């Protein structure tokens, strides 16, 4: 059993790019579950359903939930209350990681951190997980938190102090919608016969929120 945990970014990205069917194709040959938390559902279904511009995208994602392509943590034996509690714990830790003068900088929201809460809970059950996350800040906190301090000092022209806070998220593995699209292409799940298809696919994910640089994209094209 494995679990791919979705943050809102890749779902929004694939929805805007008309690529949500890829999730169904991935799911068909996948021995595991695609998980979203209630925090994420709120961002990708509940709220956008009230906004006409995004209503269709929200309905499409909701259909994936109805078809059980996307499932909630309880489907994999996790307790919703425990996930919620761990989400608040991780959010609080992340939001007490950097400080400017007298202010703690609120870096993240519960939605992003709920993905790590699920990953941590699955680790305790020895279930392999991967987080699909386009978001830059939460990813940096997980993979190289000191870079976030450097980025913010540079951008804000202020001394940003990094604390010794244990973020408790460093063991998680993250991929972006760009890498998911790349794998889909290599697995032949993209039915677009054109030499430019891969490039078009990768750039489409970047332009809709995947936190990837142009250099990384070019490197990916050459792999």
């Amino acid at each position, binding site marked *: 059993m494995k679990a791919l945990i979705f943050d809102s970014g890749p779902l929004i990205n694939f929805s805007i790019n008309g690529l949500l069917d890829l999730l169904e194709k991935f799911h068909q040959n996948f021995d595991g579950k695609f998980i979203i938390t209630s925090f994420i559902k709120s961002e990708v279904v509940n709220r956008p359903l009230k906004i006409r511009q995004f209503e269709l995208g929200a309905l499409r994602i909701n259909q994936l939930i109805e078809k059980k392509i996307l499932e909630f943590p309880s489907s994999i034996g996790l307790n919703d209350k425990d996930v919620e509690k761990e989400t608040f714990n991780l959010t609080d830790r992340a939001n007490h990681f950097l400080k400017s003068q007298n202010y703690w*900088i609120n870096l*993240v*929201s519960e939605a*992003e951190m709920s993905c790590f809460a699920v990953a941590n809970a699955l680790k305790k059950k020895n279930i392999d997980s991967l987080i699909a996350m386009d978001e830059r*800040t939460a990813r940096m906190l997980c993979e190289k938190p000191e870079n976030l301090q450097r980025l913010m000092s540079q951008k804000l022209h202020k001394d940003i102090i990094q604390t010794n806070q244990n973020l408790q998220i460093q063991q998680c593995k993250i991929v972006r919608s760009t890498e998911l699209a790349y794998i889909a292409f290599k697995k032949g799940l993209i039915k677009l016969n054109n030499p430019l298809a891969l490039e078009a696919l990768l750039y489409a994910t970047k332009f809709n*929120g995947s936190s990837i640089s142009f250099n990384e994209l070019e490197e*990916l094209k050459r792999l």
Partner: protein
Amino acid sequence: MEFSSDKEEIEHLKELLKNTSSSLRESNSYNLNELSNQTIHSASITQHTEFITLAVLIYSLSKLITRKSKFPEKKWDNFVKRFCNELNNASSELQENNMEEFSRHIDHAKELLTTLSPNQRQDVEEVMKKSSINKAGKIFEHGISLNRTAHLLGITPWELASYIGQGKSMENQYIKTIPIKQRIKFAQDFFS
């Protein structure tokens, strides 16, 4: 830290209100844009609603000034007078440390902008919406997460995702955290 007890920020805000009034009276779009950007630095750190509302309002003004000929002259002049009056009152309340009244005046200023002209209401609302997304983009650039930023500005991650995708914020050297080959391997191993 409570905003009302941060003397440095209060002085900064009073200066901002004063400069916004003078730039608005002079119809100086460039200055307003600069003032809005300055506000975003503080807004990214403190995340006080007042800073964020002001950043959006000031940026909206910088855009609307360039098309002020669309509004009847008398109406525009009256708006500028009333808007500056609200900012002045807000500043006085700040001096007295009366945060509730300060917020009320900022809300009034916002209302004056949205009701500037019934005929142009949709245009004004559109400018304010775009201003919110623009300011969200700036806060995101400063390192705050996408969902957190969207929440602060009262917009959705859907609106913000495409906006940030068009910008250059992902080109910063610090954003690359692990080699792309390693990340691809995560995905390949997971789906093998």
